[in-house]
C-alpha cells in the first residue's frame, strides 16, 4: 500500500503542479508534495509488514506482466534517499528562479515518480517502464533550463542512455521467452535456470544499460557534460539518485539472474571500474569548473562501488549498499554548495573564485565538512562505506584494492585543491562583496551534515536495514 503511495503522491502532485501558474505557490506545492513522500517513506520504515510494503495488480496479462511493487531493505533505503533528496533540493534551489516554474517543478515531481518506480518495481517490464520514465523528465529539465550547450549535450545523454535501455529491452524479452512460466515477476525470474550461453548473451544485453547509467569508464563521457550543462537542481537528481539506479539495477536484476557470467567477467568489469577511478580522479585534478570536478569525482566513487559489487562478497556488498545512500547525501550536499556559490557569484570557475571563507564562514565550514565526507574521512558516513568496500575489494584481489586505494590520495588532492581555491586565499573582485548563506540554506546543509555524521558514527541501523538484501544477493552470487 505504502509502495503504491510512494508512486502516486508524486505522480498526482506532479501533474497538478503543471497547472499552478504562480511561481511561489508551485514551489511550496512541490515542497509539500516531496515532504509528503518523505513522510510516507519514513512510515514505510516503521511498518515493514507485507500489507504495507507490497502491492500487486493485474496489468498486461497476455504479456505476463503485472503492476507489482515491493519494498525490501534496499528499496526502503533508496526510496528514503530519494524522499530525503527532493525536499533538500527544493529548499536549496528555492531562491533560484526558473521560467515556467510550474513545468519545472511538475517535471521534477514526475522524475521523482519514475525514480520511485524503479526502486519499487518487482516486475521486470514495469521496471523498464519506470526506467524510461525517470529519463524523459530529466531530459526535458536539462535541455530546457540548462546552460548554453544544453541541447546537444542533453540529447547525447538521452540517446546514450536510451540506446542502452533498448538493448536491455531485447534482453528482457529473451528472458521472458526463456522463462518457463512466461512471467516478468521478480520471483519467477530468479527461479529461471539459464544455460551458460544464454547467460553470456543476456548479461551483455543488460549490463551496458546499467553501465551507461552508473556510469563506469568508458561509458561515462555523457556525464560531465550533462552535469555541467543542466540546472543544478536536476544535476542533484541525476547524480544523487539517478546514478544509483544503475547500481540498484545491477544488484536487483543483474547479479542474481546471471551470477555465472558475472563471475566469469568480474575481472574485466572490476578492472575497467578501477582504471576508471584513477582516470576520473586524474581528470578531476585538472578541472576548473566546480561542476565538472564534482562530476568526475562522482565517476570515481561510482567506479569503486561497481567494482566492489562484482567482487561479490558480503563485506563489500554491504559497503556498496550503505555507500549508495551516503554518496547520494554527500554529493547532493556538494551540489547545494556549488549552487549557492554559483547563484551568489555567478561563476563556477575555481580560478575566478577565492577567499569566500572570509565572507561566508558558515558556508565554508559546511562545505569543508561535506568535502571531507567526500574524501571519506573517518566518522563521516562515506568512511564506513568505503572502508567496507575496500575491505571487500581487498578480499577479492589485493592489487585492485591497492590501485583503487591510490584514488583516495588523488581524491584528497583535488578536493583540498577545490577548498583552497574557492574558499581560502584572498578575496578578489568577484568575491569581495560576498555574503553568508541565509537560514534555510544553513538548515539544508546542516541536515546534510547531520546525516553525514550520524551515518558516520552510528551506521548500524542502516547496515541492519540492508542486511537482508545483502545476504540474499551474496547467497545467490555464491
Amino acid at each position, binding site marked *: 500500500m505504502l509502495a503504491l503511495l510512494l508512486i502516486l503522491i508524486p505522480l498526482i502532485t506532479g501533474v497538478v503542479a503543471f497547472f499552478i501558474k504562480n511561481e511561489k505557490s508551485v514551489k511550496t506545492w512541490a515542497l509539500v508534495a516531496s515532504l509528503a513522500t518523505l513522510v510516507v517513506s519514513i512510515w514505510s520504515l516503521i511498518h515493514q509488514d507485507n500489507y504495507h510494503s507490497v502491492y500487486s495488480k493485474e496489468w498486461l496479462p*497476455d*504479456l505476463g506482466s503485472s503492476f507489482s511493487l515491493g519494498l525490501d531493505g534496499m528499496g526502503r533505503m533508496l526510496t528514503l534517499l530519494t524522499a530525503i533528496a527532493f525536499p533538500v533540493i527544493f529548499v536549496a534551489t528555492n531562491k533560484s528562479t526558473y521560467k515556467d516554474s510550474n513545468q519545472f517543478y511538475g517535471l521534477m515531481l514526475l522524475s521523482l515518480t519514475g525514480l520511485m518506480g524503479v526502486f519499487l518495481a518487482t516486475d521486470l517490464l514495469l521496471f523498464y517502464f519506470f526506467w*524510461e520514465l525517470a529519463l524523459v523528465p530529466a531530459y526535458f529539465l536539462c535541455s530546457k533550463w540548462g546552460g548554453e550547450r544544453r541541447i546537444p549535450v542533453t540529447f547525447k545523454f538521452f540517446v546514450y542512455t536510451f*540506446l542502452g535501455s533498448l538493448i536491455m529491452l*531485447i534482453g528482457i524479452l529473451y528472458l521472458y521467452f526463456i522463462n518457463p512460466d512466461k512471467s516478468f515477476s521478480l520471483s519467477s525470474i530468479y527461479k529461471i535456470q539459464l544455460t551458460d550461453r544464454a547467460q553470456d*548473451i543476456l548479461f551483455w544485453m543488460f549490463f551496458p544499460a546499467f553501465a551507461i547509467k552508473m556510469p563506469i569508464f568508458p561509458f561515462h563521457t555523457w556525464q560531465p557534460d550533462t552535469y555541467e550543462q543542466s540546472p543544478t537542481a536536476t544535476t542533484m537528481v541525476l547524480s544523487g539518485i539517478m546514478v544509483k539506479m544503475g547500481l540498484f539495477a545491477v544488484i536487483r536484476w543483474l547479479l542474481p539472474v546471471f551470477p555465472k557470467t558475472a563471475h566469469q567477467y568480474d575481472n574485466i568489469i572490476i578492472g575497467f571500474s578501477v582504471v576508471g577511478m584513477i582516470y576520473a580522479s586524474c581528470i578531476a585534478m585538472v578541472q576548473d569548473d566546480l561542476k565538472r570536478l564534482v562530476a568526475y569525482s562522482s565517476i570515481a566513487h561510482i567506479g569503486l562501488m561497481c567494482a566492489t559489487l562484482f567482487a561479490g562478497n558480503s563485506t563489500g556488498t554491504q559497503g556498496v549498499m550503505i555507500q549508495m545512500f551516503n554518496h547520494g547525501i554527500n554529493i547532493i550536499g556538494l551540489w547545494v554548495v556549488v549552487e549557492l556559490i554559483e547563484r551568489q557569484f555567478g561563476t563556477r570557475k575555481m580560478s575566478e573564485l577565492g577567499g569566500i571563507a572570509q565572507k561566508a564562514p558558515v558556508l565554508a565550514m559546511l562545505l569543508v565538512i561535506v568535502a571531507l565526507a567526500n574524501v571519506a574521512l573517518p566518522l563521516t558516513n562515506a568512511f564506513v562505506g568505503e572502508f567496507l568496500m575496500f575491505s571487500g575489494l581487498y578480499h577479492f584481489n589485493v592489487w585492485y584494492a591497492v590501485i583503487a586505494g591510490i584514488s583516495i590520495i588523488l581524491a584528497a588532492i583535488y578536493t583540498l585543491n577545490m577548498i583552497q581555491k574557492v574558499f581560502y586565499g584572498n578575496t578578489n573582485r568577484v568575491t569581495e562583496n560576498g555574503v553568508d548563506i541565509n537560514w534555510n540554506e544553513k538548515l539544508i546543509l546542516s541536515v546534510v551534515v547531520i546525516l553525514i555524521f550520524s551515518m558516520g558514527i552510528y551506521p548500524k541501523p542502516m547496515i541492519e536495514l540492508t542486511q537482508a538484501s545483502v545476504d540474499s544477493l551474496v547467497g545467490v552470487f555464491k
Partner: protein
Amino acid sequence: MNVIVLSAIWGVVMMFSGLFIASKSKAKFIAIAGVVALLIANYFDLHHKVFINSDFNGLLRYDSFGLIFITIALVSTLLYLLLTGRDIEKVGNHVYEYFALLFFVLCGVGIVSVYNNFLILFLGIEIISIPLYILTGADKRNLKSNEASLKYFLMGAFSTGILLMGIAFIYGAKGTFGLEMPPIATPKLPVMISIGLIFLAIAMSFKVSAAPFHFWTPDVYDGAPTVFTSFMATVVKAAGFIAFVRLFEVSFGVMTDHWQFTIAIIIGATLIIGNVTAVFQQSVKRMLAYSSISQAGFMLFAVYSVNSLAKEGILLYSAAYCLATIGIFAVLIKMRDYTFDGFNGLAKQQPLVAFLTAIFLLSLAGIPLTAGFLGKYYMLAAAIKSGTYIPLLIIAMLCVAVSVYYYFRIIQAMYFKEGSADAVDVTSSYKGLLVFTATLIILLGIFPNSFLLDWFHVL
C-alpha cells in the same frame, strides 16, 4: 461486408451531392456523416449482422483480425476528417470528388483487410491505388503534385505487373486463387511457389514502402497535398500491412523458414535506409515520409513472424502509428513553414498544441507509456517468439535510437529553441480533438488490452 458496400455507396452519394450542393464547406459534414454511418455499419459487421447476406464462395474471410483493423481504420479516418477536413477544401475545386475518392479508398481498405483470394487482393489494391494516384495529383496547378502523381502512377503500375506475375506463378503451382496453401511435402520449396512468393513480397513491400521498393514514398508524400499525404501515410499504409500479414500468414505461414531470411533482409534494409536518410532532412513533411518508411521497417516484423502476437501487435502498432501520424500531420498543416526551424518556439505560442505534438512524437519514437512503445514491444516479442537473428534486433534498436534524433529535433525546436512559430487558425474544437487523439495514444499505451486487444479474443 456492410462497410465495403456502404463506403462504395457513400462514394457515389458524395459524387451526386457534389452536383446538387453548391457550397464546398458542406462536403466535409456529409463525409463525416458517412464515416459515422460506416462505423455503425461496422458495428453490425463486428456482430456478424450483414445487410446483404450472401456467401462469397470463400472470396472474403471475416475474422477478428480484419474486422478490428477496419474499426481502427474507420476511427482514424473519422479523426482525420474531423481534424483536417477543412483543409481538403483548400486543395482544389473538386472537393466532393476528393471525398468520393476517399470513400472508394476506404472501400478498398475494407476489401484488402478481409480478402481471402488473390483476385480480391488484386482488385482491392487497385481500388486503393487508383484514387490515390488522383488525389496525389489533386493540386493540379502545383508541378510537384503533378510530378508526384505521375511518379506514383508509373511505379505503381509497374508494381502491379510484378504482383500479377507473382499471382500467376502461385496459380501455376497450385491451381486455385484461394489463399490457403496445401502443406509442402518436399523439403525444398517448389520453384514456382518460390518465385511467386518473392514477387508477391516485392509487390506488397512496394505498397507498404519497404526498401528497396520505397523510392516512391518520399517523393509522393512530399509532393502530394499534405492532407492526402496524411491519409496515405496512415490508413492506406496500415491497410497494406494488414493485407501483407494476412497474405503471408494464410498462404505462406506453413513454410515460414523458407522465406524468413528474405524478409529479414528487407526489414534490415528498410530500417537502415528509412532511419538514416531521415536524419538529414530539413523539411518535416519529408522527414515524416522517411519516418513512415522506418516505421514500416518495424511493422514488417509482424510479417516476418506470422503468429498471434504479431497479429495483435500489428493491430496495436497500426493504431498507434495512425493516430500519432494523423495528429502530427494535423499540426503540420497548420504550420506556415514546413522546415524544422518552422517549429521554433511553438511551445511559447501554442503550449497545448506543442505538448500534444510532443506526445505524438514520443509515441512514434517508442517511449514507454505511449502506444508506440507497446507496438514496438509487440513486434520485438513476436519476432523473438518466432526465433530471429539477434543482429537484426540490434540493428532495429540502433535504428530506434537514430529515430529519436529526428523526432526530437521537432521537440527541441518547439521547446528549447527561440522562435516565433505559430499555428494558423487553431480552433478550440481542433485542440479538443488533438487532446482526444493524444489521450487515445496514452490509453492504448497503458491499457492496450481493455481498449483494443481483448476484442481480438472476444470476436
